């Protein structure tokens, strides 16, 4: 192929025609060469201010109003203006169509990179990963957010801003304890949302003191709705213990009004929607970064982008996957882009060009040559924890020079428990995997009882993992929030397991 004549773009400035041409070329590579499977794409060009907007509302294009988003915006804006942080590389929304944002200031090369990264990399991951498929509803999320925004605005109008704000504050504090980890949450479809809304409206007309008996029935969870008629024993019908505090409060709080329950439900649904993202940071970014890297290189190989573009892309790519070492002042944990990209590239290497060691560790696909199949299988069926446990190779551990530390609170030193050597690979790998298990990194807090016949004290248990307690000051603050939602005393006990 002769160079120059086939270039998709030559200028640094972008225009819509160049975007369109480039998108089509990227799509061609993504679907035919990489065999990706994506939601339809919607690419939006936005200004930096709009990027900040989106950034500060959890990356969603629409969101109900709350002061914490304003706080985030103020913080981001200050950082951005001071030049401390570059704007988000890209924002992509797990929805169908999959919306990705292009920043207007980007050069054409960067736009190509972002389209490859977001509109194909992330998009494929959202559509295929089991967690997203199982736990989120890409078709319904935007509609649901529109409903949430409207509903909360209506509540503010009806009940006053402060009242709504205090419920939201409390609910936000419990977001990480507001997800179902093991059973599948019901997905809010449009019909159901409308139906719910209608029922809510009727419901609000009624007196709320009859709430105990007339809780909206049949919405969730699957199975019999909780009834509270025979609450002789603590938690007899509350299906205790319950790990989803927001769900429990929504269904069983003796003091909340119908609209407050709905607000809790909104926050809970959001928490559930974001839950898979929290569990797949490394994989999601790794997948997207790998995809953009592969696509950009293929485009270059086919003479579709110039050498200058490739260099610009590589410069940006390298800074994204940079991993400072632990004693570097820039170190702030393991960079998910770096680890993810390294692992994805490593899988390709193992499939195409394995060493003896790789054959021993990864007999399933080492040398198979089908790296696309191996990667797609990983992207579909794993989350960070299991992915690392399964696919982190000794070679990568050596490259990253990983070592594991044992930390006991009382002692003044950390102990090096394993390093990147023959005896330590398995241990380092499984400890690193454990670091990505939200089941152990999030405190395990459950509702264990409620003295409904007595003073209505609510009992919570924190099952301590290896004796690590909750942060004391934060705990007190959050418990205050729970008390506000429950309306009575709340006792949170910490017990070792």
């Amino acid at each position, binding site marked *: 192929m002769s160079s120059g004549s086939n270039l998709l773009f030559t200028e640094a400035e972008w225009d819509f025609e160049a975007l369109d041409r480039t998108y089509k070329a990227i799509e061609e590579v993504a679907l035919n060469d990489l065999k990706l499977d994506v939601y339809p794409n919607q690419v939006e060009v936005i200004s930096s201010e709009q990027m900040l907007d989106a950034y500060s509302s959890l990356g969603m294009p629409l969101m109900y109003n709350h002061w914490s988003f304003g706080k985030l915006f103020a913080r981001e804006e200050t950082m951005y203006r001071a030049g401390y942080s570059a704007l988000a590389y890209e924002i992509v929304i797990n929805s169908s169509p999959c919306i990705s944002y292009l920043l207007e200031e980007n050069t054409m090369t960067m736009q190509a990179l972002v389209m490859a990264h977001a509109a194909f990399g992330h998009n494929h991951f959202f559509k295929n990963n089991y967690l997203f498929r199982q736990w989120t509803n890409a078709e319904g999320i935007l509609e649901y957010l529109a409903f949430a925004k409207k509903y909360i605005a209506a509540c503010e109008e009806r009940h006053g801003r402060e009242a709504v704000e205090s419920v939201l504050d409390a609910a936000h*504090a419990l977001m990480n304890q507001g997800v179902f980890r093991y059973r599948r949450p019901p997905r809010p479809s449009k019909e159901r949302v409308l139906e719910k809304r209608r029922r809510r409206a009727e419901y609000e007309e009624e007196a709320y003191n009859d709430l105990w008996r007339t809780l909206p029935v049949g919405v969730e969870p699957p199975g019999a709705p909780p009834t509270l008629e025979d609450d002789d024993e603590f938690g007899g019908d509350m299906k205790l213990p319950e790990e989803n505090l927001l769900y429990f409060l929504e269904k069983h709080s003796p003091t909340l009004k119908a609209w407050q329950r709905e607000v809790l439900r909104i926050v809970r649904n959001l928490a559930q929607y974001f839950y898979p993202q929290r569990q797949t940071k490394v994989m999601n970014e790794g997948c997207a970064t790998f995809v953009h890297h592969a696509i950009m290189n293929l485009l270059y190989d086919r003479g579709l982008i110039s050498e200058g573009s490739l260099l610009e892309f590589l410069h940006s790519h390298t800074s994204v996957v940079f991993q400072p*070492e632990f004693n570097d002042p820039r170190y702030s944990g393991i960079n998910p882009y770096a680890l993810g990209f390294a692992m994805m590239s490593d899988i390709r290497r193992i499939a195409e060009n394995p060493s003896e060691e790789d054959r021993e560790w990864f007999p399933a696909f080492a040398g198979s040559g089908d790296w696309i199949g191996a990667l797609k299988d990983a992207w579909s069926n794993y989350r960070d924890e299991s992915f690392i446990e399964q696919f982190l190779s000794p070679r990568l551990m050596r490259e990253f020079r990983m070592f594991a530390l044992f*930390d006991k609170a*009382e002692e003044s030193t950390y102990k090096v428990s394993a390093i990147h050597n023959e005896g330590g690979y398995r241990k380092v790998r499984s400890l690193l995997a454990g670091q990505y298990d939200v089941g152990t990194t999030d405190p395990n807090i459950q509702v264990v009882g409620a003295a409904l016949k007595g003073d209505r004290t609510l009992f919570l248990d924190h099952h301590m993992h290896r004796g690590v307690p909750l942060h004391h000051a934060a705990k007190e603050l959050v418990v205050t929030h729970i008390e506000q939602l429950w309306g009575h005393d709340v006792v949170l006990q910490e017990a070792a397991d």
Partner: protein
Amino acid sequence: MPYFIDRRLNPKGKSLANRQRFLRRARAQIREAVQKSLKDSAVADIVKERKVKISAKGTREPRFRLDPKAAGERDFVMPGNREYMPGDEIKKPKSDEDGGRGKQAADYAEGEDDFEFVMRQEEVLDIFFEDLELPNLVRTMLKETPNTVWKRAGITTSGSPAQINLIRTMRNAHGRRLAMRRPSLSDVKALEDELDRLERQDPQTEETRAKMAALKETLAKANAKRRWVGFIDPVDVRYNSFTEQPVPTSQAVMFCLMDVSGSMGEREKDLAKRFYMLLHLFLRRRYERVDIVFIRHTHDAQEVDEQEFFYSRQSGGTIVSTALDKMLEIQRERYTTSDWNIYAAQASDGYTQSGDARRCVEMLNADIMPLCQYYAYIEILDEREMEVFASEDSGAELWRAYRTVAGLWSNFATKRISKPADIFPVFHELFKKTENAG
């Protein structure tokens, strides 16, 4: 199918509602921070945006989280091992919050302690002026509106001859004439010429005579029509219409009066300056136009420019009433009360020639106070004096005299200040929202 959408033209400020909520939420902390930063910084900077640092209190977003520093054990993996072997021990980095549980509020932190962000100028000023209101402003500005202006209000069919709108009138007349087929002067002239020509023909044939008779008839008809279809008819006439509209007075003049005799040092002048500037800023927010007149005085008074006002020094005695005289003079000459809202701010160290205070009081009561929207007097003391004159009632002659004026006029205020930190509270109190402002 790619689907590109250009969102750049979408309305901006989507997060404004959130920002307002945040500002409201952190109101107490922000107010504290803004007021502190105003006290410490140059007054002129108030019209800039500023970075404020607020404590996280009130805008905390607590979550349950684990605290491995407090107790228990954990494992973690880090990259970049160069030298360590299994079994090695590494000293934990010193952290000032060892012991964890002790100081709760302080160590809540983790990126959530103090929070710094940029506030826009309006936001700063709004907080600054939050519960301040210009005294008696409502009365002059919104209720009493003695000033009116004539504004055009279209065209009417009746009015005085002086207001005739010629163009409209003529246009209407022209239209009417066309519609009524009024013969024009040139039409008539053409007929007359033709008649004339025929009359001059020497051998008059039968044919010409008949023609002439017809022409005469036509001409007569035309002239008759011209008589009863007027060139201008009363129905054509239009007049310009004007209505009287009230205009609120939206300009203010601020008289800055200051004693510049030897007893007023740099410190005193600096304090006075800040006071004037705050007042000026405040007026600027309320009025479209604010004039400032600087009057300095020793034993006699002069109008000077700002530079001279603050930085030159004069020797001489102190006669306050000369400044009041000067102010009245200037006011009469240039600032009529019907056009201007008048504010006065006077700073002094409290000394004046004996007997002069009485004259000042007379002038204030009789001439000045009826003109002024507000008159503020600050007496600048040093800190030692401040303690001596702890009570409002005690003080030098001028202070006591002014106190009597303050008793009579609600828009007259007196205050003592001794250090920069006093200025803001003074200001705050001077312009406190008056309960019955309406």
